């Protein structure tokens, strides 16, 4: 048990020494892995920032709730109470039929309204959602439309749906790209390990002749692969930080112009750890594939 642990420790030490002994080769491999990670990761960041931006936009999707002309005062009060207490509703305000008519007049449509003997516009509530997802919006609209005293409820959610659809598409693309670049990463790692294996062919052969198991032979290469993936992930995080720094200035200037407090968000700690873990794992996998193939060739 202790010697097993000792071999793990010495394999790890050996792998780090080998990584450091060829700083240029290791550096370029780390850079290649870093770019392969940074591409989908920066797209992911762009999309999650867009998503946040969509949530922050002043023109939030709204639901207009038109009150029936013959609604009783009791029903009107019940509606008001319901809107105030509903957890899914953000802001809500009342526009009386008179106020609505005034607005029309103010917009220069006095000519049309002048001829009317009776105000045709209904009383209405305009409300925004706590969370603007198309699904939640439709659920709420249907719920409110069913309330007694409500004539109809309209959701102007088309643009929100379109944006959401685009973001979903974007996320799908990121997912596909991640899978592709993940494959690339495995290939890069496996290739780098192949060079290591070629350089250590003798050692593998001799070790096998004097009783080394496949597991024993694989161990230092797996550590090498894992370390390589980890350095690649660090390179990727470095690239993302540089990209963030480059983009931060222009984005906040743009946001300021629009009077928005929006600031670019970078990768969170959990996401950083996930990148590190996945890169380490795929590079480990690449090493495993490369060594196993070589061992099979030895027969």
């Amino acid at each position, binding site marked *: 048990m202790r*010697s097993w642990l*000792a*071999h793990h420790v010495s394999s790890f030490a050996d792998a780090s020494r080998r990584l450091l002994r060829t700083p240029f080769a290791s550096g370029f491999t780390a850079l290649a892995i870093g770019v392969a990670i940074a591409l989908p990761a920066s797209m992911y960041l762009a999309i999650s920032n867009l998503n946040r931006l969509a949530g922050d936009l002043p023109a939030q999707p709204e639901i207009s709730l038109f009150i029936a002309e013959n609604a009783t005062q009791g029903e009107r009060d019940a509606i008001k109470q319901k809107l105030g207490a509903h957890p899914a509703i953000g802001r809500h305000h009342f526009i009386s039929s008179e106020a609505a008519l005034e607005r029309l007049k103010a917009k220069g449509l006095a000519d049309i309204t002048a001829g009317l003997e009776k105000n045709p516009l209904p009383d209405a509530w305009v409300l925004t959602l706590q969370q603007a997802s198309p699904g939640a919006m439709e659920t709420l609209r249907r719920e409110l439309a069913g309330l007694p005293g409500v004539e109809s409820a309209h959701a102007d959610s088309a643009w929100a749906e379109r944006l959401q659809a685009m973001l979903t598409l974007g996320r799908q693309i990121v997912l596909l790209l991640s899978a592709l670049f993940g494959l690339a990463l495995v290939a890069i790692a496996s290739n780098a390990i192949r060079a290591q294996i070629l350089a250590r062919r003798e*050692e593998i052969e*001799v070790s*096998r*002749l*004097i*009783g080394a*198991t496949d597991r024993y032979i694989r161990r230092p290469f797996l550590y090498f692969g894992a370390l390589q993936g980890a350095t690649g992930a660090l390179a990727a995080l470095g690239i993302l930080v540089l990209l963030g720094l480059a983009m931060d200035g222009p984005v906040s200037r743009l946001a300021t112009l629009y009077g928005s407090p929006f600031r670019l968000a970078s990768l969170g700690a959990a996401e950083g750890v996930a990148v590190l873990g996945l890169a380490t794992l795929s590079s480990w996998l690449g090493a495993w594939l490369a060594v196993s193939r070589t061992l099979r060739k030895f027969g």
Partner: protein
Amino acid sequence: MIQFSQVTKRYPGGLTALDNITLGIEHGELAFLTGHSGAGKSTLLKLIAAIERPTSGAVTVNGQNVGRLSRHTVPFLRRNIGLIFQDHKLLFDRSVIENALLPLSIAGFDRREAMKRARAALDKVGLLKRERAMPVALSGGEQQRLCIARAVVSRPALVLADEPTGNLDAGYAIDILNMFKDFHRVGTTLVISTHDERAIQAMGGRVIHLDHGRLADGA
């Protein structure tokens, strides 16, 4: 300990290296394997260590049919065999002591215990003073002795030596053969392939003579 039953080994390409060999080697026996170049000496040793597998027939070591071992059990067979190679097969990127430690590291020995044993083995072959040296800095005879130290460091019950005195002058060869005598005395089973007739006479042991893959006499 070792039993060959009607063993034939044909290499891809149709060449028959061993032809219908039947022989037994007892526990603690010292056996020399002789024959012209290409007679099949190395092949016979490789079959015992499961480096090659017989085309037909069975090779058993301690009752185990080694030709049938799975790739996961072969390493455990080899840990009980000390192999001395015709071409040494030392690792030139690590020191003398690290080379001697390799079998113990593979077998999972505690590092401290392994160091003790490796030093003892190097001492026995007269290389203890060179433990920090790299193998390139060793002479041919010293490299051969390091190979022997590595083969016996885990105190295997069976040692297979392929031309251990191959390219050495007579003085060195006697040294090395005396070492084998010592191993023989403590009960190790030894199979040594050699061209060196003088050595065999000096040592006195069983001789297995191969001629074009066939057993000639002494078996």
